[in-house]
């Protein structure tokens, strides 16, 4: 592999000049931080304001007020406050993957409940 020194000898370009040129090109193209007012003028000329999607100032104000991020405030309950019975039923439905209970299964469940209650009574 060629060393940088060998390349320098061949091209006559010093590594300082090479990095200086690269930095100059990147500054002119607005890709590294400007180091002069002239660079800022170049940068402004490079940027098409119509292509920049601007930020709503309300987002900045929320930050300076130390408000919670917008994402969390957007999470609101869909149905308002629900009773615990409804919540339990929703959880049970979720456990059944949203499926309905057939008459046969429901009869079996009722029978199981009666048997369980009988068992509890006998324990007492």
């Amino acid at each position: 592999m060629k060393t940088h020194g060998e390349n320098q000898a061949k091209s006559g370009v010093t590594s300082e000049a090479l990095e200086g040129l690269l930095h100059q090109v990147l500054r002119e193209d607005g890709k590294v931080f400007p180091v002069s007012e002239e660079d800022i003028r170049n940068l402004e000329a490079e940027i098409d304001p119509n292509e920049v999607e601007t930020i709503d100032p309300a987002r900045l104000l929320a930050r300076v007020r130390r408000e919670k991020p917008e994402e969390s405030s957007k999470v609101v309950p869909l149905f308002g406050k629900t009773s615990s019975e409804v919540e339990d039923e929703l959880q049970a439905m979720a456990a059944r993957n949203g499926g309905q209970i057939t008459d046969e299964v429901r009869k079996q469940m009722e029978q199981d409940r009666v048997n369980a209650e009988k068992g509890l009574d006998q324990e007492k």
Partner: protein
Amino acid sequence: MRENATVAEELATRSADDMDLLLRMTFKDENREDAEAALAEFFRRYQTTLLGFAEKSGFRALGWSPDDFVLRTFEKAFEKAGLFRAPSGLPPDKLRLKIQAWLFQIAKNEFLMEFRKPERKQEAPTERERTEAEGQAPLPEKPPERFDVQALQGKKAAVRTFLDALPEADREMLVISMNFFDFKTGKVHLPDDILEGLAESMGTTPESIKTKRGRLLRKLEDYLETTTTKTTQSTKQRKEL
């Protein structure tokens, strides 16, 4: 923007000059609502250039959001509004440049702080960083010139072609590293902690960044040499014809 502002107040803010907006921002403890209205207008006027820069400069490759970078810069500008200095009687276009330069110095400070290790982030910034951020070291009108770059002016187009042809990750790494170019030495100097932060952001090691960077610079040099040779040969052929 102000919840209780009248139409007349809104219009007055829209037409206020930049110095007036900055002054109103300094009184945030006395009149918070007015200071925030001034900040919103200031942000509307100046966010585009910074946003455009953040999009172009490859911050996404570091996992940074350009929006977040710009919002952080203006948040700091709101805190430091009282430290902005400009000679009185500046024409509006000159004042506009001074303000942009100040915002970019704050932005660069935030950029540097992002690379610092978490434990260092809690420390006070260095004197140089603080000075830059507070606008006491204004940007010069023109960049410092290096005489050895003058001879290479004709090669800018070749540099751009070279950069465009690089894989995105290599290009972004090279571009981001060039933010640490030192005019005094004509070379990039990446402090160790910044290099570690950069490597972490890019999911690699400091050694790998150094090696890859060196290899890319050699490739660029080879490419410039090749294009120069080709140009010389075609010029010679045209003359012969």
